[in-house]
């Protein structure tokens, strides 16, 4: 069976967590589990993950706090938040904090499976683009002086300019 990716499940409900772990493992994912926010935070900082399924309401740190922690990270996993409140303000806030999508409980496993695949695919593409841009930025910066934040911003902006010698 091929490796589909590395996933974290952060959920305080043991039955739901274990069933989800079994389902995803049978799907071919490598799964880490956390029963509260602090444990989830630790795994997020120690492991390189493709995606995280995070419950918004958890003891310790809630899902929103985890999203805030992930924001400054260079290469964060794609986050899918889970909520029992339907379209709540917390779900909207989670989206604003950079979550890929939100899923309402009781979860529809088919939907979860598809969204998880999409999230991982989306992240992969984002990372490739970032790598490419990073290379370009470095290329432009080579010919220019200045390393301050304003100059850095300028290099990034200039990378977006149309260039005649693009490789494609």
């Amino acid at each position, binding site marked *: 069976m091929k490796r589909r990716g590395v996933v974290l499940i952060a959920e*305080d*409900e043991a*039955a*739901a967590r*274990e*069933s*989800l772990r*079994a*389902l995803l493992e*049978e799907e071919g994912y490598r799964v880490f589990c956390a029963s509260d*926010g602090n444990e989830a935070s630790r795994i997020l900082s120690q492991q390189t993950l493709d995606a995280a399924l995070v419950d918004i*309401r*958890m*003891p310790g740190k*809630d899902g929103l706090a985890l999203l805030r922690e992930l924001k400054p990270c260079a290469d964060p996993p794609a986050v899918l938040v889970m909520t*029992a*409140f*339907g379209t709540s303000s917390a779900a909207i806030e989670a989206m604003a904090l950079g979550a890929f999508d939100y899923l*309402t*409980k*009781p*979860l529809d*496993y088919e939907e979860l499976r598809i969204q998880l695949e999409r999230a991982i695919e989306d992240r992969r593409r984002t990372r490739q683009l970032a790598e490419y841009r990073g290379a370009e930025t470095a290329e432009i910066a080579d010919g220019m002086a200045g390393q301050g934040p304003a100059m850095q911003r300028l290099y990034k902006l200039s990378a977006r300019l149309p260039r005649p010698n693009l490789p494609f």
Partner: protein
Amino acid sequence: MGLPRLSSFRAQIVIIAIASVATVGLAAVLVRDVITRTEGRLLDEARQQCIAATRELKMQYRERAAYADEAILGLPLSAQDLSLKGLSGAVLRSYEGIAGGFWVADVNRVIGQSGTPPGEREMELIRSLNRGGPTARVFQFGADLIVVAADDVDRNAVAWTRKRLEGVRDPVGARRRWLIGGLVVSVVLGMGGIVSIWLFLRRGIAAVQTGLRALEQDFAFRLPAAPGDFGQIAGWINRMAENRARLEADVRRQDRLAALGTVVAGVAHEIRNPLNSIKLTLELLDRRLQRGAASSDEVRVAISEVDRLNRIVNRLLLFGKPAFEDRHPQPILPLVERASKMVQEQAMKKGIAIDVTPGGEECEADVDAPQIEQVLINLLLNAIDASPDGEVVSVAVKCSNGDCRVTVGNRGLSLSGEARARLFDAYFTTKPSGTGLGLSVSRKIAMNHGGSLDFESSDGYTEFLLRLPERSVAPS
């Protein structure tokens, strides 16, 4: 009683009354002044007329004497009288209302007279008046004023005139009677008017004041209907009260709807979590069944989640009605100790000590033990959650006045304003994984026992007080 303030209604009425009395008084003085002036003018006029007439009588007499002195002086007195009568009649014809004539001193007789003869007082004046120029005197005779003027015409004779001003000095004269009567009537009317306005305003204001006071205490009160302006004011106040009552009812309805919304959201959250577990477990079971790899584990998980759902529903039902299984008087301290033991593990995790203050062994209350234990566990878990690591949660049992009181206190942040107001609301919670049912159900249980559950929170210390009656009372 101090002086009333100028802005007070009573002071204003007093000022108006004083001003009215002053106006009436000044008017009376003015009327009197006008009357006196008129009288003075009449008197002056009469005096001048009398003096002029006297002077003319004297002139005419002297003229006649110069041309015919022998004729006159030689005539007998009766003839002289007749002759002078003609003279004075001719002179005084042009002086309206003036009588006059001559007085002969040596025989003390009045001669040549025109008009009514002089009376006793007039004679006295005529005799005593200064000689050597016309002089006039005034005296009062009943309601009349009499002006008498006299002057010497020769050694022995005096010319005199008299004018009677009738009714000038009549104190009970018709004119004065009307004036005084009018004044009295207007003063009485004015004062009566002021007093009646005062009474009317005072009654009206008192009615509005008592009405407003009653309204403040009981908002269902309505001011009684009354005629006039005060009735209108009462009507407006009543309308305002009705508007406010309507607004309040609206707000209450919205509050109820909002509370219902909170409850529904809480129920949804509580029920969706086990539903989620069941669904995912069944999903797994389905896949494993298809592969022939199913075990009974998945089914057991699903069954236990269904049981959990049922417990949630039971807890919600407890919210609605008292359900005592085994209620009897018993010591409370053992319940406290059992509850403390049950939360020991959570306390240990945070390095918190539960300190049960000794005493209260004899405290008994009529309770259902498992329910009260549940309340105590809720209170202890809350205290442990709210307490910083390594602190002490203190519990004490005391009895007083037929009540058993259990206090559970902890250090930590004081409760915020919203938390204070909504602490006992169902599904209100400040904890990320809280259901918001613990305290509302605990209070419900305390109330079902005829007791209460309250809290105090200040200066970083929060204490819950569970009060339970020693003897059974009907649940409130």
